[in-house]
């Protein structure tokens, strides 16, 4: 049970959502944008967050789009992970989405919510990072577009009052050779010890990771190592482990040294798999 009262708004347009949020902000209600709601419920139950109001984005038509428009695959922030996997327009994204939580939760969790979440892992962002997707962001100045790398560095970095409206991915990426591997403590459901998403564009491997460190990342340094000719896959994996952007994570799911062991194994396997294709 959520141990406090909060207001609930369900605007039906981008402008109404932004205005409502701004008004609530001005009233000191510390509003939050609401999409699937799973994280807000989780943290509010434990009294870790106390929004005075939530602004539900699901009634905004642009947030529920999932289609190709010309060269771009557009997916709205409120499309659920189950729907992303079901439609399978971007198979790598579908696989990464399917690795998150369990089926019941994925029926609620949305792409926007997962990417913008506070829980470390945000695995749905990984395919967007390797595909150089663009994010459509709504805010008081209207709607803007930005490269994902400008806005997502470890976590989403939006201006106050902004929300993620849509993601745009160039069609050429959705059918490139790709790899998705998720290693958990045990079993088929749970947070990652290592999640790796990689694709091969031309002769270059691009890779993004979650679970290894306290945030998801794509690293130029690691990709340089992965694409160094003349080194064995094992050696490249070993060197990649030396280029992590932060120390490996230790928590109840697993310890840093085991994550590192799995990271190296996963990278080695991915290189072998992608170079053969």
């Amino acid at each position, binding site marked *: *049970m959520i*141990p406090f009262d909060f207001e609930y708004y369900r605007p039906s347009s981008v402008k109404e959502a932004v205005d409502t949020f701004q008004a609530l902000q001005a009233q000191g209600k510390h509003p939050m944008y609401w999409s699937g709601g799973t994280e807000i419920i989780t943290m509010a139950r434990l*009294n870790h967050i106390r929004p005075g109001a939530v602004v539900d984005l699901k009634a905004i038509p642009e947030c529920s789009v999932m289609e190709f428009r010309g060269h771009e695959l557009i997916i709205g922030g409120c499309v659920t992970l189950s729907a992303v996997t079901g439609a399978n327009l971007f198979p790598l994204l579908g696989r990464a989405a399917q690795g998150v939580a369990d089926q019941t939760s994925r029926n609620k969790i949305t792409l926007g919510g997962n990417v913008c979440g506070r829980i470390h892992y945000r695995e749905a962002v990984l395919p967007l990072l390797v595909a150089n997707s663009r994010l459509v962001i709504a805010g008081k100045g209207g709607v803007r577009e930005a490269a994902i790398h400008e806005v997502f560095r470890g976590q989403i970095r939006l201006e106050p009052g902004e929300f993620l409206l849509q993601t745009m991915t160039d069609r050429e990426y959705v059918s490139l050779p790709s790899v998705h591997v998720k290693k958990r403590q*045990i*079993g*088929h459901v749970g*947070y990652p010890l290592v999640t790796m998403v990689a694709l091969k564009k031309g002769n270059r491997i691009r890779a993004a990771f979650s679970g290894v460190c306290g945030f998801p990342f794509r690293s130029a340094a690691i990709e340089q190592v992965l694409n160094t000719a003349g080194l064995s896959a094992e050696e490249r994996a070993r060197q990649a482990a030396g280029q992590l952007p932060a120390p490996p994570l230790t928590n*109840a799911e697993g310890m840093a040294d085991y994550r590192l062991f*799995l990271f190296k194994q996963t990278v080695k396997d991915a290189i072998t798999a992608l170079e053969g294709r």
Partner: protein
Amino acid sequence: MTGAARYTGDALKPGLLHASLAVSPHAHARILSIDTSAARSIPGVRAVVTGEDFPVLTGSPLEDRPPLAIDKVRYFGEPVAVVVADAEYIAEMAALQVRVEYEMLPLVQSPLEAYKPGAPLIHERLAEYRRYEEVYPEPGTNVASRNRIRKGNMEEGWCRSIHTIEVRVSLPQSDHAAMEPRCSTAELLPDGKAVIHSASQSPYIIRSQINRYFHIPLQQIIVHTPLVGGGFGGKAAVQLEFLAFLASRAVGGKAVKLVNSRERDMVSSPVHIGLESRVKLGCTADGKIAAAEITHWYDGGAYSDRGPIMSKAGASDCSGPYRIDNLQCDSLCMYTNHPYSTSFRGFGHPELTFAIERAMDVMAARLNMDPLEFRFLNAIGPGDTTPTQTLLDRSTVGNLPMCIAKLKDMIRWDERPLMEAKGRFVKARGVCCLWKNSNTPADAGAGAVIIFNADGSVNLLCGAVEIGQGTRTSLTQMAAERLRMDVHNVSISTDVNTETEPQLWKTVASRSTFLVGNAILAAADDAIVQLKNTAARVLRLPPAELEVGGGRVYSKRDPGTGIEIAKIALGYKLPGGGTIGSQIIGRGSYAMRDIKELDPMTGKGKPGPEWTVGAQMVEVELDTRDFSYRILQAATVIDAGKVINPVFARGQITGGMSMGLGLASREAFAFNEEAKVLNPQFRTYHMLRYGEQPTYFVDFVETPNAEAPFGLRGIGEHGVIGMPAALANALSTATGIPLNRLPLTPERIWRTVHDTI
């Protein structure tokens, strides 16, 4: 599946108030002050109760636990206050506003740490605690209870031992993880009655405990237990009932509901006991066990609850189902700053079995002997004595060699090697034997009433709680069998009400079909006598010449002569007026016979009426690169005495195996250095899920137990017992490294393999 089941928490009632707990964020700290003023000032809050309001210690067998902490807290999540409010969210909001000032105390994080000389004391006044049943605390230490087994001559045993091995094992505390979190409501009526609704396995114990601590006469306490959504032992403890009672008392007796959130249910309410253990085994050249020395340190947590009885079980069945004539065991229930533990499916046996069965496998490997053959060679049987020096016969011990033989056939043991490698994958099998006695109190008992209706159908009244195990259905089958009537004419409700159903000690220890079954047979026999007496007068035949069956009472010699039960169930109306006989109401009861308390110095005694024995196997496929594995098969052959309901029996054994594999492979509380539980939620507390289940194989041996209805033996817990050991044995074989610590996550295996190198 109809969705028609209603749990305790589903009941709505106008005017119902809601309670919520304020709990300790620290695992061991002195309480300097509690400020409830902010909580009280929230609109809708009716009362805030703290430990000072009820400075009484509760617990059985040892009174060591205040329902709300007094002076200090001893575990993370311990209740310190209960708030009563008009709505649940208000109560929760206010509980967060209870301000407690703490002063940290040094922590005890494991039972072995607790046992070290000079360890911080968790209960300074242990000597003063009142005791019931068998419990042997050692004041000035963290030992809540110690049982000893001293059997045979150790010196002689070690002299005869050509091979000796030593194994140390540990398994962590974990959760019962029942689908329905615990929930209790309490209402104190103006006429002095106390009405409790509770998701409980022990409605009659709730009644006696409320009587003991609140001085309400037994007949004035009414406990209702509707269908319970799984218990696994965790709902045998009395905890929320006291708190709901205190909450109701604080608001003038109004009905108050207290329901656990999942996090509270996992940590604030009692948990599954942990164990650290050391086993030394000695063996003759020809593979006979000559000596064993065992020490168990159970992790009972902050309060003892049923821990001392589980550690007693750890002593009384310490040898596993093997003939060991020279045996020494010390089994201790230790206090630690972990959540407190209570009974868990298997009651100390999954733990003790993990210890002895790892040792058995290590010894078999030392002897270069087939692990099943080694167990077969040492299997206990009629004429042998148990660790408690009970002389066994066929009725009390059943037939373990037959279980082993049947298991061997079922899994085609001899057709494949213990281990097969194929590339990076290794398939391996691990086996285990088990036994269990119930360790019930000497006076545990049950009653039953069979009420006949006008159409000859019957209603069955008894105190067995339906927790998903199907006991109440099995009990109607027993009544129908004895009365020789169609089972559809026997009805039983899913609810237990202590005001109308005769007492059953508790729905635990795989004892319900035994205790209540015996009571039902007595009640049925009583009803049969009444039926025959009435029919005899109507038919003008001696009662001894009559038989009951098929809805009739009839002549043995001339079955065509008889009368329908429907005509005499409420008395036989004579055509010209007048009645012969009156309503048939069968009554029966049963109490344990012949249980003897264990001598605290030697362990001599008798812990229960019979043992259930069995043999189990687990097959795994290990990926030697990252140490992940799949559980391919799990098998159990158990001596059930007599299978009453084959579908339920298989269900119980299979469910037990699934639970045991969960414990073995992943279920564990993760503590940080402050003894806070890091994973009190299913997102981080991992359980075996659909899609991860192995193929299950179940079969039975039937060696009747003379004391039990239809010769049955308890089987409700037994599927769990050997799974941790069998999985560890399989994975130890697959890796070639002894794996003696649970849970067996891939990381644990990786770490063990690397540490060894």
